[in-house]
């Protein structure tokens, strides 16, 4: 029988499916449905601070029939929320572009290196993945702050006479995001550039194209899948980022992840925090679906 499953009738196999399935239903899907539910409930002064919607099936159904979308309309009324959404998208998009501009030549350089070098350079790209994200962001605080290392160095060389205010500005957030997510950009770019057919470049050169023309007309179009994958891998986590704007950005750099955190931990408005979460996910669904379509097409094509 072709293509049959191994141990098809085994109890072990059924358990191997069932256990992680139930786990994910309980710890991933159900919690998300609860967020959805709470986002349309009203904030009552009680602990837990939301009107419990799980009292009885009847009450739950009652709630469903009259959803309270007040939290959502509040999100649109208060410019704070709209601004932090737009700001998150803007900061994530610009950081992604900068990461692409820095990552592309690095990935191309690694792909062009000799076989011995490539392994070592790739390890250097991957190694930061394994070191603590929090610590890598924290490392920039000591460098960027007003009395930090960068200012001390620039003052010492005489390039500037007054310390620069970089820490607690959007610039610091850009630096932090590009720094943290650069490996995500380099790896997919490398894997497409590495597979690039060298003979196409030779053919272009033989036909009289200058190196820059060859790059624009041949290399760049052929590396589009890597560019797309890299950009999504940087953009998606950057939109919901909390640690980087919190530690490097000032109070003016509001991003949506930070707004959600504050709404939850400082204002203790759980329904509102839940609505922020649901809308954040809706904002991300579009790029995620495009990315998955793209990945599938690349996988099958």
């Amino acid at each position, binding site marked *: 029988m072709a293509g049959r499953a191994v141990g098809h009738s085994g109890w072990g196999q059924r358990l191997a499916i069932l256990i992680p399935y139930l786990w994910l239903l309980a*710890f991933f899907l159900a919690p998300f449905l609860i*967020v959805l539910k709470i986002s349309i409930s009203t904030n009552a002064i009680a602990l837990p601070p939301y009107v419990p919607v799980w009292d009885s099936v009847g009450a739950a159904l009652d709630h469903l029939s009259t959803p309270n979308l007040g939290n959502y309309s509040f999100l649109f009324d208060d410019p704070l929320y709209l601004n932090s959404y737009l700001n998150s998208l803007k900061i994530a998009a610009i950081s992604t572009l900068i990461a692409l501009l820095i990552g592309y030549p690095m990935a191309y350089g690694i792909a062009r290196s000799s076989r011995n070098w490539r392994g070592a350079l790739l390890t250097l790209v991957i190694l930061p993945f394994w070191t603590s994200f929090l610590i890598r962001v924290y490392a920039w605080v000591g*460098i960027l702050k007003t009395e930090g290392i960068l200012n001390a160095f620039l003052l010492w060389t005489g390039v500037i006479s007054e310390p620069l205010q970089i820490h607690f500005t959007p610039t610091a957030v850009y630096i932090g995001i590009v720094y943290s997510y650069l490996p995500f950009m380099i790896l997919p770019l490398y894997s497409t550039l590495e597979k690039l057919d060298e003979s196409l470049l030779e053919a272009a050169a033989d036909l009289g194209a200058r190196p820059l023309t060859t790059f624009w007309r041949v290399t760049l179009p052929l590396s589009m899948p890597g560019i797309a994958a890299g950009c999504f891998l940087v953009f998606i986590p950057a939109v*919901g980022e909390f640690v980087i704007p919190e530690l490097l950005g000032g109070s003016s750099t509001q991003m949506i992840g930070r707004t959600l955190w504050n709404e939850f931990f400082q204002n203790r408005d759980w329904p509102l925090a839940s609505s922020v*979460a649901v809308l954040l996910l809706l904002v991300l669904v579009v790029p995620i679906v495009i990315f998955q379509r793209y990945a599938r097409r690349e996988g099958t094509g």
Partner: protein
Amino acid sequence: MRRGPGLFLKIAMVLGFAFLYAPILILMLYSFNASKLVTVWGGFSTRWYVELWSNTALLDAAWISVTVAATASTLATVLGVMAGYSLARVPRFLGRTLFSGMVLAPLVMPEVITGLSLLLAFISVSLDRGFLTIVFAHATFSMCYVAIVIQARLSGFDSSVEEAAEDLGARPATVFRRITLPLIMPGVISGWLLSFTLSLDDLVIASFTSGPGSTTLPMKIFSSVRLGVTPEINAIATILIGLVAFGTIFWSLALKRAEANRLKAAQ
């Protein structure tokens, strides 16, 4: 013949790697600074490491983090191996699309959402927040990484060997233990290590799901970083980076050697 990188690409690589590594190296260097001021180099000293040793709050947090990470990554590995095996070896079962969606989704889910949703779920079933809830949360997102590593490894081997063993009368459990498990072992270990580092590193999800008395190391570091740069944090960061770098290099060398032995045996 592959052309080497030109001058422009070489410069880009040097600058890029300097950008990636300079902050970490500066941080490690300043953990040995005798002065408390970040910008003033007061000579070489290990005083912050000594002081770290008497900072019981930080040490307690480190111990909690390590026990959470060890428990969560073991749980995640068991769940992830089952999930990865199912996805790679069982072509059809009820709700397979939902299942593979749930395995992939946590990887792109913003941490603030994962943390918030788990916290609200734990509260709705009146589960006291603490050690156990952090373990559940970490195991959930880590198992997805493990599942993907295992699935990738299994789809690299076709199932003919497993089928042959079964045709020869081996029971499914025996096939798994004697054939499948040895094949995926490097993936299992990599998955465990990845889960361990992810758990050790996590700040956002742990902040949502932890309770009183279960402050993890990243939470502790985060709260003191908010107050400013302290040499003690530089010291603990240096220790963490050192441990992880050592572990990664050791494991990749071991993998390389095992792969070389396998190739030699196959010849």
